[in-house]
Each structure stands twice: as structure tokens, then as C-alpha cells.
């Protein structure tokens, strides 16, 4: 019973983190048809930015909640700036090329940014545990949970709700849906597709950075954190269906719970299980759970 509860809570926390990272990836893919490997860099920059912000506010003796907000906004601001630079400066030049070629472009960017991180922050690791410590713990029965983890789940829920609301009920969301559905027709109706692209990419980048920021206190911020997260986010997005927001949510829950179950019950298959589930889902539903097969065009 205790194990089941632990699996559920661990799984939810892990799923929350995966969802925040994956929703940015899936949003960018859905709108722009770009599988953005550089999303791992957004995550890493977010984490490093958050670690820097934590360093600043711990020195400055600020209220913990305000400090947390400062940390998040600082990281997301980095994400926004990077998103604008990348989309306007580079990706704009390769629209219309093969999808696979664009993946390689983002892969190149990812490689470059890995070393940019090393240049800016150096090779040492940055602890940023203060928000996690100041959040304290809560006990549910015999299980001790960190309040910070609860905040993480809440943030993921807020992001999900906001994304849903923005897509269904705002003007921009409706424009976005149109562009996702058919880019050329949308352009023919006078929608500024270029602007939609830029805005989407920037939002996606900011979400990636947010993922890094909220995870920074839970991990040691060090070189190479982007490498691992990008394949995990791919797995989540592939399971749910690329470009589908509901898919990212369900995919994150599946991966989160499976991993938590593996960690508690059979630790030796921890890594295996995530990709095993992904391969299994793709065998049954080639385009993921929430995307229908496309009709083939001659």
C-alpha cells in the first residue's frame, strides 16, 4: 500500500516535470513541424539561469516565495530571449527544407549551446536546493512529501489549464489551431503565419526554460543535463502524439508512472521501461496516442 502510494506520488511529480518540458516541444512541433533538439538547451539554460537567480536572492535575503517567482521569471526571460534569437536568426532560414534537415539544424544549435553553457557558467556544478529546503515537508500517513514537489505538480496543472484555455478560448489560440490545421489556407485567409511561428517558438522556448527552472532545485545543475532530458521529452511526445497537448499530458503521466513503478519495484529496468513503453505504443499507434494517421497524398 505504501509502495503503491509512493509510486503514485513519485510518478505524478516526475510526470509534472516531464509535462512542462514536453508541452513546449509538442507545441513547437504541432505548429511549425520542427522537432526541436535545442529544446534540451532551453531546459539547461533555464536550470542554469534558475541556479544563478537562486544565488542572487539567497545573498539578498528575500522572502522565499518571492525568490521562487524571481527564479522562474529569470529563467523564462532567458528562454524568451533565446527563442527570439534562434527563430528569427536561424530557423527562419531553413523553413521549407526537409523536416529531417531542420532536426539536424536544431541538433547543431544544441551542440553549440552546450559549449556556450560551459563558456558562461564553467564546468563546475551549481547547487540550487534552497527553494526546496525552505518549502519544507508534509506528511501524509507514513509518506513524507516535499511541499516543493506539490508546487511542481500544481505548476504543471496550471500550465496544462492555461494551454487548454488559451487554445480554446483566446483569439491567438484559434489562430494557432488554424495554422496547425492547414498552414497555407491560414496564410491565404490573411493570418500572419510568420508572427504565429515566432510567438509559438518563443512560448515553447520559455516553457522549456521553465522546466529547467523548476527542476533546478531538485537536481545538481551541471553540464550535460540537456542531453538526457531531450530524449525523455521525445519519448513523452512520441507516446502522446507529436503536436498534441493532451498527448503530452497523457504521455507524461504514462512515462512518469511507469518510471516510478520501475524505480520502486525493479530498479534494474528503469531506463529500459521508458523507451520500451515508447516502442510499444509506436508499434500499436504509429503516430502516438492522440494523433490520427495521415492520409497519404500523391
Amino acid at each position, binding site marked *: 500500500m505504501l509502495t503503491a502510494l509512493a509510486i503514485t506520488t513519485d510518478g505524478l511529480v516526475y510526470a509534472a516535470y516531464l509535462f512542462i518540458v514536453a508541452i513546449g516541444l509538442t507545441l513547437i512541433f504541432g505548429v511549425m513541424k520542427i*522537432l526541436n533538439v535545442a529544446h534540451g538547451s532551453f531546459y539547461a539554460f533555464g536550470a542554469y539561469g534558475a541556479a544563478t537567480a537562486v544565488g542572487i536572492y539567497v545573498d539578498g535575503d528575500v522572502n522565499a516565495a518571492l525568490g521562487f517567482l524571481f527564479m522562474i521569471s529569470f529563467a523564462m526571460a532567458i528562454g524568451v530571449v533565446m527563442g527570439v534569437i534562434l527563430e528569427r536568426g*536561424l530557423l527562419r*532560414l*531553413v523553413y521549407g*527544407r*526537409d*523536416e*529531417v*534537415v531542420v*532536426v*539536424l*539544424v536544431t*541538433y*547543431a*544549435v*544544441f*551542440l*553549440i*549551446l*552546450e*559549449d*556556450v553553457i*560551459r*563558456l558562461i557558467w564553467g*564546468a563546475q556544478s551549481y547547487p540550487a536546493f534552497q527553494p526546496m529546503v525552505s518549502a519544507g515537508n508534509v506528511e501524509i500517513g507514513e509518506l513524507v512529501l516535499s511541499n516543493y514537489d506539490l508546487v511542481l505538480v500544481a505548476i504543471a496543472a496550471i500550465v496544462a489549464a492555461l494551454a487548454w484555455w488559451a487554445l480554446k478560448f483566446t483569439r491567438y489560440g484559434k489562430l494557432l489551431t488554424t495554422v496547425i490545421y492547414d498552414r497555407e489556407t491560414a496564410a491565404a485567409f490573411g493570418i500572419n503565419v510568420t508572427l504565429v511561428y515566432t510567438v509559438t517558438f518563443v512560448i515553447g522556448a520559455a516553457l522549456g526554460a521553465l522546466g529547467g527552472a523548476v527542476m533546478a532545485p531538485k537536481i545538481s545543475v551541471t553540464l550535460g543535463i540537456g*542531453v538526457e532530458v531531450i*530524449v525523455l521529452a*521525445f*519519448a513523452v511526445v*512520441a507516446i502522446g502524439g*507529436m503536436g498534441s497537448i493532451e498527448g503530452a499530458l497523457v504521455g507524461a503521466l504514462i512515462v512518469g508512472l511507469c518510471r516510478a513503478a520501475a524505480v520502486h519495484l525493479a*530498479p*534494474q*529496468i*528503469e*531506463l*529500459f*521501461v*521508458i*523507451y*520500451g513503453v*515508447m*516502442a510499444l505504443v*509506436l*508499434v500499436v499507434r*504509429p*503516430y502516438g496516442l492522440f494523433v490520427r494517421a495521415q492520409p*497519404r497524398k*500523391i
Partner: protein
Amino acid sequence: MFLIAAAAAPALPDWIVSLATIAFANALVVLGLIVMWRAGLVSFGQALYYCIGAYTVALVARRTGFTDAIGLIILGGMAAGLVAAVVGFLLARYREIFFAMLSLALSMILYGVLVKSESLGSTDGFSVSPPTFLGYAPHGDALGRALYWLTLGFGAIAAVFVGGYFRSLAGSLATAIRDNEIRVEFLGVSVTGIVHLKVIVSGVLGGLGGALAALAIGHVDPNMAYWTTSGSFVFVTILAGAGSIAAAFVGSLCFEALRSLAADVMPDLWQMTLGTALLLTILFLPEGLGSVVARLRRRGGAAT
């Protein structure tokens, strides 16, 4: 070209020989990627076959005491080919990004398994016993040279076979598949079958490359299956371009040279160098470095 490279070996310093051995071993994997690239497919999981080839060699040598290099390498290629044949049933149904992602997932599964296998040395991997060559058991420099020649030999054989494959019906249909799959099916050809064959061919090549690399490095570890390994193979493919077979070998040699140069001069900026080179190639040389040679040759031909 292979003969020149083989004849040059005694004159070259050791570090060039070992660098070239690794480079040509990796070139086989790149050749496998070129086979798929011709049909518009990119695999981000080629490290799967590379790693299987390497681990087959290492395991067979350790468990059975069988150390003949040629036999081991052929075993490595066959093991990888077998795996490719099995996963090919699945992979051949996918295209574009989905193909890339699924192959990525498969190689990450292998990585996950290897990292957690204590008996296989977990993340550290284990070392490969020095091979023999049909009873001849060299040491030190002589071993390095022997492996170099062996790699060249396998490279030459693979180049001939892949060349023949490109000229065959299945090989020449690749470009057609890339351009319009449905029309190819209207010709009465099974596209899935052709793609499956491509997966197997590139799997065997990947396995051979991994087996050679395992012998040359003398060590295997799970990182051989990690996605960044696959990434660097894709990188070389883009750099070299899918135009010719020779490009795979030259491109791979350039890559290894660049890598050791960057490691000496600016160890912290290696990935940035890589990324920049990749970006510039994609933006300005979409057909790869091989296309420059072809273009020069055409221009030279027009002038005379």
C-alpha cells in the same frame, strides 16, 4: 584509393594509423546511413547496431576465447544484421521523423539494458582481449597496423558491395522512394520491402563498424549505444554528403582529424566546433563536402 592507404601504413606514425583505423571503422557505419539517406531516411539510432557489433566481439572473445579478428568481425556484423532484420519489420513501416525517433528509442533501450547489466560491466563496460589474425598474434605497433589493414580490407569489400547495391534495382529505386513513395508502389514494387532491406544493409554495416572499433579501441561501453553516438554518425553523413561512397571514408577521416585537433587546441569548444561545422554545411553545402568535388570535376570537365 584503399591500396594507397594500405601501402602508406608503414610510413605513417602510430597515432595517425590508430586515428585512421577508428575513422574507417566509423566510415562503415556512415556508409550504412548513406544507404538509408538515399531513400530520405535518417536514423538517429545507428548506434544500436554499432554497439551490438562491438559487444558481440567483446563477449564472444571473452566467453569462448575465440580471438580471430576476421571471424569476430563477421560475427559482429551478422549479429547486428540479425537484429536489424528483426527490428526492420517494425522500422520499415515508418518514415521521416517517426523513423528517426523509433530507431532512437530502440538504441536507447539497448543503452538502458547495458547500463543496468552488472555482468557486462555496467556503465564502465569492459575491455576486449587483443585479437589474432588467422593464428598470427602481433603486439603493440604491429597489432595496430594489422587492425588498420584489416579495417581497410573490410572497408574496401563493403565499398564494392554497397556500390553494387546502389546500381541494383532496389538501390536505384531509393531516390524514387524519397521523391514519391506511392508512385513507386504503383510500379509494382514493395516500398516496405526495399526499406527493410536498407535497414538490414545499414545494420550489417553498423555492426561491422562497431566490431572493428571495439578491436581498435580495445574497450566497449554502453555509451556506444547512446544517442549522441548516433548523432555524430549522422553528423559525418551530412558533412560528407550522400553522393558517393568515397565521401563516407574521407568525411569520417576529416571528422576524426578535426576531433583530435579540437581536443588538442581547444578542448572546451569541441561541440561548438562540431555544431558550427554542421550548421554551415547544411546552410551552404546541402549536398555535403562530396558535392564540392563533384562540382569541381564538372567545372573542370566543362573547361577542357
